[in-house]
């Protein structure tokens, strides 16, 4: 592996912003007090946690800092929201989600299905877009909860969560609406204030905070039982002494992400488009999976037809390029991406799908480097493929 790393796997995790790390540092050895303590030493920490909660509130666009619960991860936020809503509405046995959710939500729904819940998994079209009519028809008097991701982790396609929430509330105001915004956070504004969304999950490590911290927005008036029973922390919903340095880090990361939002939606988008267009122009067996118009600005998912994804990643890794794949071979599960399968991506593109995800730290030089070396990798692997005739046809079509 070469020394230089071009990190284009920011949907997997991100670098901690050095500015975030700086503000966290004093809360390890210097200001290590317990925010619940009566002394001034702890009180100072308590104020810092309150400031972080305020920063996260602003990031969500929420009305009140009380609506923010700090969690340990995105999966924890999803669990707290979904399990909590169901526990508080025990008499209702129908829940709705989509086929393209992250395993944190999907496997939880499968768990409740086994427990006797009836579950509707909403489908998506070939572009990864949702049909709100299907949602509308699925809603019943027995529905307790709808949980939907804001942006898909693999394709970056944005789901119409605000419209969906409005539709759900119009049909039945008692249904709770949860949004897994882990992949949307920091890429598009969240702004829950004027929506019908009741709960929203984010994870720190996708927005340049460290791993091990996240937050859940719970709209005032949403009944949610304690997820961890014990002390009074997080208004009794999640007991346990606060993870102070990480909370401070998340607060800072949220503020920085908010400030970088314009940059994200213009400059990061420009670099992503440059990468995508460059690949499509030079590589004849490449095609984009999912919508190109309705997407977060940092993600592109490209299917390299008739070659396999893991093999591409291994060769890219040797060149210092980090990306990820929806191929079966990379997951260890033998199953290729459930997201791309739900979209009906044909097998020749499904197994060779590569996701490139940028961040505000991605540079023009890095994109130029990838565009320079990627074609040779793909053409070398094309030569190994048994599907030479199909590849020749694609090449001829491309050159027309």
């Amino acid at each position: 592996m070469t020394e230089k790393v071009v990190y284009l796997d920011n949907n997997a995790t991100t670098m901690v912003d050095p500015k975030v790390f700086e503000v966290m540092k004093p809360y390890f050895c210097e200001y290590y007090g317990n925010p619940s303590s009566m002394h001034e030493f702890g009180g100072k920490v308590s104020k810092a946690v309150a400031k972080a909660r305020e920063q996260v509130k602003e990031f969500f666009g929420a009305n009140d800092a009380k609506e923010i619960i700090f969690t340990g991860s995105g999966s924890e936020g999803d669990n707290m929201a979904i399990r909590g809503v169901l526990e508080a509405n025990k008499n209702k046995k129908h829940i709705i989600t989509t086929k393209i959710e992250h395993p944190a939500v999907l496997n939880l729904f499968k768990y409740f299905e086994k427990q006797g819940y009836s579950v509707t998994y909403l489908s998506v079209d070939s572009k990864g877009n949702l049909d709100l009519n299907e949602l509308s028809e699925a809603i019943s008097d027995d529905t307790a909860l709808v949980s939907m991701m804001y942006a898909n982790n693999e394709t970056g396609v944005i789901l119409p969560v605000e419209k969906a929430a409005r539709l759900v509330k119009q049909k039945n105001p008692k249904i709770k609406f949860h949004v897994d915004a882990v992949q949307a956070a920091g890429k598009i504004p969240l702004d829950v204030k004027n929506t019908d969304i009741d709960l929203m999950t984010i994870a720190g490590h996708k927005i340049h905070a460290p791993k091990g911290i996240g937050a859940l927005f719970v709209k005032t008036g949403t009944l949610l039982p304690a997820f961890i029973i014990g002390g009074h922390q997080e208004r009794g919903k999640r007991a346990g002494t606060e993870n102070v340095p990480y909370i401070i880090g998340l607060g800072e990361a949220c503020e920085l992400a908010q400030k970088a939002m314009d940059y994200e939606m213009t400059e990061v988008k420009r670099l992503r488009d440059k990468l995508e267009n460059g690949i499509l122009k030079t590589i004849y067996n490449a095609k984009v999976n999912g919508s190109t118009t309705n997407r977060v600005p940092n993600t592109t998912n490209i299917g390299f037809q008739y070659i396999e994804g893991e093999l591409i990643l291994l060769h890219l890794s040797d060149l210092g390029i980090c990306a990820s794949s929806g191929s079966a071979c990379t997951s260890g599960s033998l199953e290729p991406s459930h997201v791309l399968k739900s979209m009906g991506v044909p097998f020749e593109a499904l197994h060779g799908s590569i996701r490139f995800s940028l961040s505000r730290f991605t540079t023009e030089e890095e994109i130029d480097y990838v565009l320079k070396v990627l074609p040779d990798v793909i053409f070398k692997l094309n030569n190994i493929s048994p599907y030479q005739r199909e590849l020749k046809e694609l090449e001829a079509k491309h050159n027309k």
Partner: protein
Amino acid sequence: MWEYTEKVMDHYKNPRNVGEMENPSAVGEAGSLVCGDALKLYLKVDDNGIITDAKFQTFGCGSAVASSSILTEMLKGKTIEEAQKISNQDIADALGGLPPEKMHCSVMGHEALEAAIANYKGEDVNMHCDEKIICKCYHVTENTLREAIEQNNLTDLEDVMNYTKAGGACGQCHVAIQKIIDEIQKKKEKVDIKNMSVTQLVLKVNNVIEKHIAPELRKDGGDIELVDVKENKIYVSLKGMCKSCKFSSNTLKNFVEASLKEHISPDIEVVEV
């Protein structure tokens, strides 16, 4: 990230003998685009039945390419008879081992080799089509499963998934696969008692008595004791209610002997003392 050996990395980075062969003596294919793994193997065989050249084209991951590449190296210079003896484990061994989840790549290499040899011999390479497909998602046949389980002594479902991919998707065939594993394992346990030491046999007999026979007899207030073992004859004595039961000879033949026969060997004979 997978733990690949240096050899695997060398072979996927610099695959040997890549490409289509002109006028091959035999072609063998395995896998499919749907599975995410496909291999086409070409052989050139001279008049003496010696493989003079081998080439491949593979759609698949790093270990699939490495398995194909090393297989072509292994084949060159071998006779068809020698080539026929190469197992999937030989392919994995030549690579210095594969991660368990990737063993199916070596199985695919072996399948393509089998198909190529069948093609060379003029056998119908599509004979697999008539076979019973167990895993419908990955088109894994019963024969492929049996071969993988027997050759690699696989004992649980997860191993079988790693070696053959069968059951890796929808999971509907898990019960069927487990049945095949159980059946093969049961057969394996039944060894020739002539090759068993007395101690081994006594332990096995005792085990079957304690697990399968005694609990049933105890339900009716009876019991059983192992007295002696001589060659294929098992000497037992019935206790408790069994002793005075007029059906005891029936119990002995139809239950005690039948159980021992089923679990150990059909050669066993039970004698009451």
